[in-house]
Structures are given as C-alpha cells and as structure tokens.
C-alpha cells in the first residue's frame, strides 16, 4: 500500500471530507440560526445576535411587561421523595405534644370522628406540605387557617413525623367494602384523567399524594369539588384541579365512597 499521509491537505479524501462536512455545518447553521428566525413572521427578533441566541435556545424575556401575577397565594413547597425521611425520636415526641391541639378534630389517635382527615400513618411529606400551605395562605380553611400561623417549620416537621409514626387504624365509619370503580383503576384517558390509584395507592404512589383509604367520604367529596371550582389551589402543577374539573359528579361520588370504604390496613405502600 502506498504510504500517503491522511491528515494533510495534499490528501484528496481529507480535503473533500473535511471540506464537505465543514460546508454542511456552516450552511445548516446559517439556515437554523439566521434564515429560520427571520423567516418566522411571529418571532420578533431584535437583530442578528438576538436571532442567533433565540435559535440556540437561550431563554429570554420576550416582553418588557412584568409577568402576570396570580390573584391568590400559590404553594411554595417543593416536594421530594427524600423529604422528612428518617425522623428523630425527639421530633416525633415533640410532635405528640403539639398534636394535642389537633386532637379535637383529627382524633387523639389520628383517626377522626368529625369528617376531618385521618392523619394516623399518613405520609409525612403530605402533612408537612398542607401545614406549610395553610401557613402561607396557599390553602385556606376556616378551622385550620387560624392554627397554622403559630407553627414554625420545625413544629410542622414534628407534627408530620408524629402522625406518620401513629399506626394506621381502621376508619371510624367504614361501610361495606365496594368494588373499585372505573375512575379509580382506569381513570378516563379521553378526558385526561389518570386513574386515582396511580398516585393515591392501589396501583402506584407518587410523592406528595396522600393515601386515601378509610378517609371520610364527605371530606374527599368536598375537596374534589373545591379543586373543581378553584376554591382550593395548592395542588402541584394544578394536577388535582385539572382532574377534578374533568370529573363528573357521579365519578366524584364513586371515587370518594370507594376510598372511604377501604380499610387502611389492606393498603401496602411498598409492592
């Protein structure tokens, strides 16, 4: 074989391949970064550099006007699955003391007789987020809102881990167990509704979603309706508002009655 140098401008293959590749890169870059931004009539570019930055995907404020602010308080809690994992026993103990003021509604064992949520064994991140939202005003409730302003972040952590520590007890008012309705196991894909069970247990659990078995049907219906009409809006990325708005009144009824009839001890978090 002839000993020709490959990486040399004397080599025809080198010249051609590098030349064609470079030409392609330059041509496509001109097309993508200059021609296309100018060709789009709805994209207003302030000049060549602006066009290039826009096509390169550098975020910019497209308007000098300030962004629209919501007329209500939005939740500022960021949920992660590592939240409140491995609590200390001191924290649980402090939570038990603090929880005395909650017992009148949520029950001394965390199981309510007043159509308030049962908190015994609930995920700590769920309780913590709701307390934070009550304090910030992202969620409002005539009974809960006055309690929250006095709680520090540590108080909320303590309460959350204490209630999580309590054993899940059968609900006070369980009805006969009823079969799972379609909305719980299938959802309604054509209306963009995921199955309730894919976040709230049964099929899967998602961070930030409470388990619902044995909760008061009246409470769950009230919350779904509040999500649907926008009275409650502290859900992450509007997940529950979008779902509740698309649910029919019968589906709300079925889902709430179904979950209320399920004993929590049958629920298994880790499958």
């Amino acid at each position, binding site marked *: 074989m002839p000993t020709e140098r490959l990486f040399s401008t004397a080599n025809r293959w080198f010249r051609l391949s590098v030349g064609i590749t470079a030409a392609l890169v330059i041509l496509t870059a001109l*097309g993508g970064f200059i021609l296309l931004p100018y060709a789009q009539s709805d994209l207003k570019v302030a000049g060549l550099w602006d066009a290039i930055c826009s096509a390169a995907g550098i975020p910019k404020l497209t308007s000098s006007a300030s962004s629209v602010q919501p007329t209500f308080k939005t939740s500022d809690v960021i949920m992660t699955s*590592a939240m409140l994992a491995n609590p200390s026993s001191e924290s649980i103990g402090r939570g038990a003391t603090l929880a005395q003021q909650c017992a009148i509604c949520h029950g001394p064992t965390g199981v309510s007789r007043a159509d308030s949520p049962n908190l015994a064994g609930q995920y700590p991140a769920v309780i913590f987020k709701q307390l934070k939202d009550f304090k910030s005003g992202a969620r409002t409730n005539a009974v809960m809102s006055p309690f929250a302003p006095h709680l520090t972040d540590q108080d909320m952590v303590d309460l959350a881990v204490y209630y999580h520590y309590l054993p899940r007890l059968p609900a006070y008012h369980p009805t006969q167990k009823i079969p799972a309705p379609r909305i719980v196991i299938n959802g309604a*894909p054509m209306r963009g509704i995921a199955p309730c069970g894919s976040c709230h247990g049964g099929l*899967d659990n998602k*961070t930030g979603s409470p388990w619902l078995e044995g909760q008061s049907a009246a409470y769950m219906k009230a919350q779904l309706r509040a999500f649907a009409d926008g009275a409650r809006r502290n859900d992450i990325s509007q997940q529950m508002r979008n779902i509740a708005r698309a649910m029919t009144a019968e589906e709300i009824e079925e889902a709430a009655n179904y979950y209320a009839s399920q004993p929590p001890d049958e629920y298994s978090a880790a499958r």
Partner: protein
Amino acid sequence: MLNSRRLILAHFWLAFAVFGVALVLGAWQMFIRSPLHTWISDPEWYYRSLTAHGTVMGYVFPTLIAMGFGYAISESSLKQPLIGRRWAWAGFGLILVGAVTAMVPVSLGRASVLYTFYPPLIGSAFYYIGVVLVVVGSWIWVALMSINLRIWKGNNPDTPVPLAMFANVAGAYLWAWTAVGAALELLFQILPVALGLKSTIDAGLARVFFSWTLHAIVYFWLMPTYIAYYTIVPRAIGGKLYSDTMGRIAFVLFLVVAMPIGIHHAFADPQVGAGFKFIHSAFTAMVALPTLLTVFTICASVEIAGRLRGGRGPLGWIAALPWNNPIMLATAFSFVLLGFGGAGGLINMSYQLDTTIHNTQWITGHFHLIFGGAIVIMYFAIAYDLWPHLTGRTFDSFRLMRLQLWLWFVGMIITTFPWHYVGILGMPRRMAYFDYTDPALASEAMSVTMSALGGFILLISGALFILILIRGQRSPAMEAEEYRFSMAVHPPASVPVALNSYGLWLALMIGLTVTNYGFPIAQLALRQGTSVPAVYIGAQ
C-alpha cells in the same frame, strides 16, 4: 477459519434466547391493550413488561448479535485466530450478569421506567447498573475488534483490510462513541439519584444525552445487517459484490453522520433551541446517503447474480434469481421493509412534519418496521448462513426457513402498517389502556386488533426460527467448507488510506458531536435551576 465457535455460538444462543422471551412479552403487550382482551386493570404490569421487552430488544439482543458476528468476521475475514478470547468470554459474562441484574428489578416491578429511562422517573439502581454492565461488556468487544485489526495490519501492511472487517470495526467504533451519551446520563445523572445521593435530576439534559445514543444505536443495530448485505448476500446467491469501494464509503459515512443527528428525537422538547433542531434535521437527511449507496450497490450485485444465472433483459434477471434460497428471500424482504421504514423516517426527521406524528403510535410502528423488520430479518439470515459453520452440521430444510421468513415479513407488515395508521389518527404511544368503547376511539379498534394479530404471527415465526436453529444443532455432522465472504467484481488491490483506516472519520464524528451537541449540552449543564424532583417507582 472459525476457531472460536463456542464463543460465537454462545453469543448467538444467548441473543436468540432473550429475543424469544422478549418476543413473547411483546405479543402479550399488543394483545392485552387491544380490544381482544378486557383491560387487566393494572397498567404497572404493562409497563413492567414493556421495560423488559425494550431493554432486551434494544440493548441485549442486538449487542450480542453484533459481538458474535463481529468475532466470526474477525476470524474468518482476517484468517487469524481471535486475539484475547478470554477477554471476549469476560465481555460475554458481563453481558449475561448485566442482563440478569437489570431484569430482576424489572420483573419485581421496581424499574418500570421503559428502556429509554425517562427521568425524572427513577427505578431501582440495579436496573441501571445492569444496563451499564451490558455496555461495558460490549466495550470489551470494541477493544478486541480494534486490537485484532491492528495486529493484522501490522502483519499485513500491504493488504487492504477486508471489507467485512473494515465494516465491523466501523460498527464497533460507532457503538463505542454513541454509547457515551447514555453512559454519561446513567453515571452522572441517573445513578446518583437512584442510589439516593441526590433527589433531583435535570430531565432535559438527560433527554439530550440520551438522544446522543438513541439514534446512532439504530445504526449500530443496522451494522450487522449492512455487513450481511455487502459480504454475505452476493456470495450466498452466486454473484459478486458490485463495488468494494462503495461499501467502504457507505460504512465510513455511517460513522460520520449516524451520531450528530439525535436531537430529531427531541423536536418537541422545549429545552433545545430551534436552530439545533434544524441542524440535526438536516444532518438526519444525510444518513439517507449511505443507505441509498447501499441499495444501489446491493441491487447491482444481485443483478450480477441474476445475469450470471442466465437472466436476460431489463427485468428478466429478477426472475432468474435463486428465490428458494433463504438469504435471497430475507434480503428482498429486508429491502422492502427498509423502504417503507425509510419513507416513514422522512416524516419523523422533518421538523414540521414530525409534529403530526410525534409521540404517537406511528413512531412505535416506525422503529418496529426498521429494527424488527429490516434489521432482524437479516439477523435471521446471518444465523442461517453461519450456523452450519459454527455447529459443523448441515441444515436439512430450506422450506421451513422460507416459511419462517415469509411469516416474519407478513407478520411485520400486519403489525406495523395499522400501527402507523392509528398513529396518524392520533393514538398516543406509551399508553397502557385505551377505552375502545369511547366513540372517539372506536374507529381505532379494528387497526389495533389487526396489529395484535400480526404480533402473534411474529411470535409463531420467532418460535419457528428457534426450532430451526435447534434442529440445525441436532442434524447430522458434516465437514463445513471454509467460511468466506463475497468477492468484489474488482477485488481491492490498493485502497486509499482514507478507506483503509478510521482516523479521519472518527475525527469528523467527534468534530460533528462538538458542533451539534456541544452547545446544547453545555448550556443545559451550566444553567442552574433546571432540575426537578425525581419520581421513584413504587416509593413514597
């Protein structure tokens, strides 16, 4: 000269065994989400099965085929015993251990994230570690192919590298570089989260890294098929390869343009700028070039065979071809499926046209047509061609092989054509459950049913294929002649150094990676506040 028969057979057998299992899962998935079956009420089982199907079919099966075929090519084309056979066994062992490590958490439902990972979904760390082991095992193969070629070149400084080995090592280098994207995503992004060291992940950056791997991996899957086109088909049908040079050019072109085009998988992703999407779209069009070169060269080679067999006139040579030869049949089927798949691909790579079918079942239909159709049917052909040389036993029934190939061809068309159609109707992909009683979906029920029936035909064909291999293994022993590859009409006496080495093309491949991926990756990696909380499978 096939000395490492046991090694090669082990690769092929493991490949086809896992392929058989994944095929059953695939058929089951098509069945349970079709109107033929009442909904199983738990989508998790569907995604669990889908993850296993994709992981096996995407990573384990084709990698093993490329490796086994690669070792066979190295020995028989270079006529030199495989150097580093122990390392090759170690690579095989890593793939076996990796596949098991990945599949255990998938079977337990702890890693139903699909084979494309989809962060912020995070499954069990063992799943990702298993996939990493599979990739590391394949990198041993890459190194061995490179070393074997280097040593051969040292001993044969004046002989051009045989086309089969030239293409094989091009495929190995392509895989080595293309796997880097997913490796970066796994090692630096997903595994720290899966191991609990972090709880947030930059999903946008992860998708860009994965796109680096996701498109070129198709060309890695395609390499054995293209090598078979060039170096097995002309010989098997009694012809000659029309042009050795054309083959070399096609393979180096794949090396250069297969990789810096992956962002066309992310056309709907907001984190990548439109300019880069356009560049990737334009470069995707370039991969048509090596494919068209190949179609031309192989058609010309087949015509030579037809004319040598007495075919006359502009089309008379087609009738004269050895249609009862399974390799001929497989090649024709592969070309037809590649034609349809390629035509669909033109829609996918167009920035605007893609919006009509993005994330629909069209895409699923497309990649099954290309991979399951055009590519895998040639894997069958490779196995049929190599088997007697590996086992030292003869095949007794070409009729059964033809039936198997026909079933696969027909089954793949019945599966994927309706799949494309429902995609145009807007049926989304990656969905477990469809309510066909809804008037809006009722019109899709017939197509989905047809598609599921096609899946069963494929399952029968797959079972038949394994049966043929088993029969081949148990048939009477024979003295196999030396395994050889196609001769070119003009065998290469002297080849330009550019077409006998890889330096230039690897430099262009890496250069294009920098121009086409450098900025999007750097921008996303440096920007703060782009991470989102991980969503762990089955965790609260």
